[in-house]
């Protein structure tokens, strides 16, 4: 049996993806099998999962959610859809972490920041010029909704403190520390090792400037607690924060979060 755009389809030996498309989705010009794009002559195997897409066609709302996840490996979507992730700080780390998790389909995001979008954010953060002055929580929620409308996104527009973090984020599966300031980074880790002990936590430290990309790594420091970054390169005069390197750290965080949700870490 095959699964074609989530509908079961009878399998026979030697069946090509284009043969299935001729019946199930005439005019399809993008073929994805088990999360990977293939050519039209690709020969299917029993149990394969296929998505057949007509490029440029606006899918129905019903189809869209399934199509958004066509490139995921099988089994990923069901797990992440049920998951919730808290993101503390929506700047150069938090906004790309949120975008990556929205694209991958994490079902519930809890976004926290107190600040508004300002021009100096745009060198690395996932906002737009026409959003200058808006609350980051609202601007990011809107942007994520344009990427993936099938998520539940909650926002908290407050200044987080070491005292308020445990109660606010007690319910999430994974907590992402995406603060800018080193003092709050330390405070967040104390929460993870103290009142939130046992919670999955992914923090970050050291991603300024344009030093070697490969200095940035993901380290497990305790059971379920990870720190990303090079641990050294501090944001300071002469060593600013820029999209490439902060983005590398953010995507290390996002991937570690995904690994925790998929229980491979």
């Amino acid at each position, binding site marked *: 049996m095959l699964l074609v755009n989530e509908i079961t389809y009878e399998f026979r030996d030697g069946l090509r993806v284009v043969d299935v498309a001729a019946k199930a989705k005439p005019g399809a010009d993008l073929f994805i099998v088990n999360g990977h794009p293939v050519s039209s002559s690709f020969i299917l195997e029993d149990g394969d999962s296929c998505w057949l897409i007509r490029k440029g066609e606006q899918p129905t709302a019903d189809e869209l959610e399934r199509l958004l996840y066509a490139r995921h490996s099988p089994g990923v979507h069901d797990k992440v859809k049920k998951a919730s992730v808290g993101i503390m700080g929506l700047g150069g780390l938090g906004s790309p972490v949120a975008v990556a998790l929205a694209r991958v389909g994490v079902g519930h995001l809890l976004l926290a920041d107190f600040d508004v979008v300002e021009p100096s954010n745009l060198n690395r953060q996932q906002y737009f010029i026409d959003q200058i002055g808006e609350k980051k929580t609202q601007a990011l929620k809107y942007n994520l909704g344009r990427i993936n409308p099938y998520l539940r996104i909650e926002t908290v527009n407050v200044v987080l403190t070491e005292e308020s973090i445990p109660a606010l984020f007690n319910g999430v599966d994974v907590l992402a520390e995406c603060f800018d300031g080193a003092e709050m980074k*330390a405070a967040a880790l104390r929460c993870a090792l103290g009142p939130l002990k046992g919670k999955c936590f992914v923090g970050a430290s050291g991603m300024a400037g344009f030093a070697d990309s490969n200095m940035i790594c993901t380290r497990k420091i305790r059971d379920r607690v990870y720190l990303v970054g090079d641990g050294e390169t501090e944001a300071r005069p002469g060593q600013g924060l820029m999209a490439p390197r902060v983005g590398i750290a953010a995507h290390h965080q996002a991937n570690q979060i995904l690994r925790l949700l998929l229980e491979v870490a």
Partner: protein
Amino acid sequence: MKIICNGKEMDVKDSLTIEKLVVDLDLNPATVVVECNGSIVLPDNYAEQQLSEGSVLELIRFVGGG
């Protein structure tokens, strides 16, 4: 007396406080997470909490940026 700091043995003065150790190591107490004998120490207690022979410390330093 001897303590273990980040896995390494260190010779330190008796009655050393966490704050004094952190400052002696050129670290900023506000940006370091301190775990002593498996428990997180809150910054308010750095000045009064003394280390003793065999104390096992983990210091995790953070730098700003995000």
